[in-house]
């Protein structure tokens, strides 16, 4: 009888902890619509012009300043 009571108590505690975790997570979403994988991996198209498309990851910023030099095929 004592063993059964212990098992029942442990099960109840587990279920209660899981329920509390679900409530906590759903109540603390920073961005409910955020994708599981950020777009970092694929980059994003930031400009389409001329004859091509520019993709940048967040580690490269575009700027409004005049370019001091350029990369080109040589």
């Amino acid at each position, binding site marked *: 009888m004592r063993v059964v009571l212990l098992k029942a108590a442990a099960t109840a505690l587990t279920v209660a902890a899981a329920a509390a975790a679900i409530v906590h997570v759903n109540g603390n979403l920073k961005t409910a619509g955020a994708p599981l994988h950020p777009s970092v991996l*694929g980059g994003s198209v930031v400009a389409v*012009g*001329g*004859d091509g498309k520019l993709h940048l990851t967040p580690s*490269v910023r*575009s*700027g409004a300043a005049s*370019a001091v030099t350029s*990369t080109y095929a*040589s």
Partner: protein
Amino acid sequence: MTLDEVRFESLGSTCHVLGVGLERGRLAWATAWVVERHDRFSRFEPDSELSRLNATAGSWVDVSTELEGLLRAALRAHGSSGGLVHAGVLGSMLAIGYTRPLRLGPTAATLAAAAPPPPLPDMLEVAGGRARLRSGTGIDLGGIAKGWLADRLAGELGDNCLVNLGGDLFAHGRGPDGEGWPVALGTETVLLSEQGAATSGIHKRAWNDGGQALHHLIDPRTGRPARTDLGQVSVVAATAADAEVHAKTALLLGSALAPAHLAAHALGWWLGAPP
């Protein structure tokens, strides 16, 4: 602090070196640094280190620390590009008529002699200050040296500088306004700091031989000038050498596969269509 810069011709290209707060004489030093490397690593200079290595294919020869570094970089580029960036296409270069600096004009092509090279590790061995090329093969460092040298010169020149060697560049420091070095990439300007960029294309160093359009970008899978549906690819990566490797790889892969390769390896990229 002032922004100083110098432009000069070397490595078969226009070079552009910029710096903020550089000590007096540093730009002249940088110019001499590049010119000296051109003389040592050009296949067109008969007395260069590279020419000596090519001329003694089949035998072990002593190489400088820098040439050893370049050769090891070529081997890494071959590995990271799945064999597409291949410094051992000298035979194909000669076969298409790229036998001398193109300002002197190409020579007649003999395309029947253009064949896929063996994998670079089967051609080139590098070990502790020595290197050996397989007999009958040769190396051209034109596709790897500019980025590799830009990375190194930027590290030695100063705390806030940009080294652009023929379009392969490395931006060191925070740039003239402290927000990064503004660099044209495609139609946009990007701000680079501790990052490299490079462009690979098939429209420069291109010519016509008896009605056949030729260019210098050899596809090692065929041993002939690459056929691709991309006109040019510009890449931002952690170093200029990496950017150069991934730009060339993407160009050779073509528009169907290039985005996946660049998404895995690049920080930014521009895919340009043929004109």
